[in-house]
C-alpha cells in the first residue's frame, strides 16, 4: 500500500499559515499588555537563544565540530548592530534590517577569519582555538574604549528587538538552516561529520564546507547578538564570556546534537525554567551541569536525539491511518503505533 503523502505546495501552505497565525497571536499577546515587561523580555530572550542554539547546532550537531567561542560571534554581531543603530543614519524599519544584516555579515566575516585557520586543526584544537578567539574578542572589546566604552558599557542602544523582529529572525534562521541541510550542501556537511576521509573520497570539499558552515553559523549568531543588544539596550563585553558560549552549548547538547527541533525546545525550556523555578535559583547551574554530565553518560545523543519534528509527517501518518482504517473497517491496524 502506498503511504499517504501531502503534496509539497499544500505542505508549504499549511506551514506558512501556521507561522502567520503564530505571529499574529504572539504579537497580539505581547502588544496587549497582558504580560509584564519582564515576561515580554523573556519571550524575546527565548527567541535569540533559539537562533543561537540552532546556529551552533549547525556546527556542533551537523558538522560534528565543537567550537567554544559562539559568544564571540554573538559579541561581534551585537556591537556591530548596536553601533549602527546608535548612529541613527537610516529610517527606523530600514535601520533595523540593515543593522541586523550588518551584524550577521560582520560576524560571518569573523567566522571565516577564525574558521580558515581553526579548521585545519582537528577536534580539540578547534575547540581551544575558538575558545581563544572568544576570549580575544572580549579582551579587544573591553580595551577598545573609544568605540565600545569598554567595561562601562555601550548605552542608549535603540530597543529594536520587538516580538515581530525577533520572531521573523527566528523563522528565517530556522528556515535557512533547514533548507540548507536538506540540500546537497547539507548532505556534504553531514558526510564530514560521519567520515571525513570518505567524504573527501566522494569529492566533497571538506575545508570549504567546514568554513561555510562556520560562516553561516556565525552569521546567525551575529544576528542573535544584535537582537540581544536591541533587547537590553546596553552592552558590556562581560555579556559574552566563556560561560555564555557554554550556556548555548548546553542548550544544543541537551536538545540533541543534530536536532533542530531539540535545539528550539531546549532553548525555550532552559530560558523559561529559571523563572518558573525561582526557589531553585541557587541550584540552577548545579542542576544544569549535572544534567549535562548525566545526559552525556546515559543518552549522548541528547534528549531529542536527532529527531526532527515535522508537522506534515505527523499529519500524513494520521491521515494515512484514518484512510486505512476506513478501508478495512475491522481496524486491525489499531494496535500498531
Amino acid at each position, binding site marked *: 500500500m502506498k503511504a499517504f503523502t501531502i503534496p509539497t505546495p499544500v505542505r508549504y501552505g499549511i506551514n506558512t499559515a501556521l507561522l502567520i497565525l503564530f505571529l499574529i497571536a504572539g504579537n497580539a499577546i505581547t502588544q496587549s499588555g497582558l504580560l509584564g515587561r519582564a515576561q515580554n523580555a523573556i519571550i524575546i530572550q527565548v527567541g535569540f537563544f533559539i537562533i543561537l542554539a540552532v546556529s551552533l547546532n549547525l556546527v556542533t550537531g551537523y558538522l560534528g565540530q565543537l567550537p567554544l567561542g559562539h559568544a564571540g560571534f554573538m559579541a561581534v554581531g551585537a556591537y556591530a548592530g548596536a553601533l549602527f543603530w546608535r548612529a541613527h543614519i537610516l529610517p527606523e524599519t530600514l535601520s533595523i534590517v540593515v543593522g541586523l544584516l550588518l551584524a550577521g555579515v560582520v560576524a560571518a566575516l569573523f567566522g571565516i577569519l577564525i574558521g580558515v585557520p581553526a579548521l585545519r586543526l582537528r577536534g580539540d584544537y578547534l575547540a581551544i582555538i575558538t575558545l581563544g578567539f572568544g576570549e580575544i574578542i572580549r579582551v579587544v572589546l573591553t580595551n577598545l574604549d573609544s568605540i565600545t566604552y569598554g567595561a562601562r558599557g555601550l548605552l542608549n542602544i535603540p530597543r529594536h528587538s520587538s516580538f515581530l523582529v525577533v520572531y521573523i529572525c527566528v523563522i528565517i534562521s530556522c528556515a535557512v538552516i533547514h533548507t*540548507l541541510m536538506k*540540500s*546537497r550542501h547539507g548532505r556534504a556537511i553531514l558526510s564530514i561529520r*560521519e*567520515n571525513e*576521509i570518505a567524504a573527501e*573520497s*566522494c569529492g566533497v570539499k571538506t575545508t570549504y564546507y567546514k568554513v561555510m558552515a562556520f560562516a553561516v553559523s556565525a552569521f546567525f549568531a551575529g544576528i542573535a547578538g544584535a537582537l540581544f543588544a536591541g533587547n537590553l539596550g546596553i552592552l558590556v563585553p562581560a555579556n559574552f564570556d566563556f560561560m555564555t558560549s557554554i550556556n548555548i552549548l548546553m542548550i544544543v547538547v541537551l536538545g540533541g546534537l543534530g536536532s533542530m527541533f531539540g535545539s528550539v525546545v531546549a532553548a525555550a525550556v532552559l530560558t523559561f525554567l529559571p523563572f518558573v523555578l525561582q526557589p531553585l535559583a541557587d541550584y540552577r547551574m548545579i542542576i544544569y551541569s549535572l544534567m549535562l554530565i548525566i545526559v552525556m553518560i546515559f543518552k549522548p545523543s541528547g534528549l531529542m536525539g536527532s529527531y526532527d519534528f515535522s508537522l506534515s509527517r505527523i499529519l500524513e501518518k494520521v491521515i494515512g491511518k484514518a484512510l486505512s482504517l476506513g478501508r478495512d473497517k475491522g481496524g486491525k491496524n489499531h494496535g500498531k503505533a
Partner: protein
Amino acid sequence: MGKRDPKAPFVPHRDAYKAPIMECVNLGIDFGGLTAVNDFCITIGPTEICGLIGPNGAGKTTIFNLLTKVYQPTRGSVYLQGIDTKDMNSVKANKAGLARTFQNIRLFKNMTVAENVLVGLHNSISYGLGEAILRFPSYWREERIARSRALELLEIFDMQDIGDQKAGSLPYGAQRRLEIVRALATAPKVLLLDEPAAGMNPAETEELMENIQKINKVFKIAILLIEHDMKLVMGICEGIGVLNYGRLIAKGTPAEIQRNPLVVEAYLGKGQSDSESGGEDSA
C-alpha cells in the same frame, strides 16, 4: 627480474591501449625511516579489471592511499589519462576520476542508504547555496534527477528498496556493496576496491564477482581491486600484481602469476616453494 620498463602495461596482452587510463611510475612512500612502498609501476587500460595481491602488510592499501592522495607520495608519479596528479588532493583526485572503497568500511553510518549515494553524486549536482536555501526550481529539478539516479545505481546490487534505511544498520555485506555504489556515484574512470569480498560468504562472493564484471561492462571503467580471496582474483582479474614488502615482485595474467615461483615464495616462505607450487596453482 631485471630492469623493469616503467611503462610496461599491467596486462601484457592488453598492450593495445594507446591511451592508458592510469599509470604509476616508480611510486614510493616512506613513513619516518621506513619505506612502505617503493618502485611501484603499473599501467592500466580504460576497461581492465586488475588485482593487487600480496601478504598482509605488503603495502596494498598504502598504494590505494597514494593513488587517491590520502597520502602524498615521497617519490614517483601517478598519471590519470596522462595528467600528473602531483598537485591534487583527495577531492581533486576523485574529480579526476578515481573512486574507492575502504578496507575498514567508511560509510556515513547515520545517513540513509540513499543519502550515502547522494553524497557520491555531490559533484554531479550543481545548484548553488542560494538556490538551495531559496528552493529555486533548479533545486527541485536537480534533486529529483539525483534521487532517481541514486536509485538506479542502487539497483545494481538490488538495494533500491532499502534506500530509507540507515546505512549503519545494514548487514556487513550490504555495507560493502553500498560503498561500491557510493564510489560509482562519483562517476569514476577507475574504481579502486579494497577487499570488496572481505567478510562475505562464498555465495555472496560469487554474486559480487558477477556484479564487478557487470559494473566493468556497463560503466566501461577500469577496476583495480585488492583481495585475499584467490578465487575472486583469479576468476575476474585480467591482470594481477603481486606486492611483497612494498615492492611489486610480479605482474602478469592469472595463469602467469600462479606459475611464478617468486609469488609462491612470498606467500609460503622459502624452501617450501618447490613442493607447494602445484597446490597453489589449483587454488
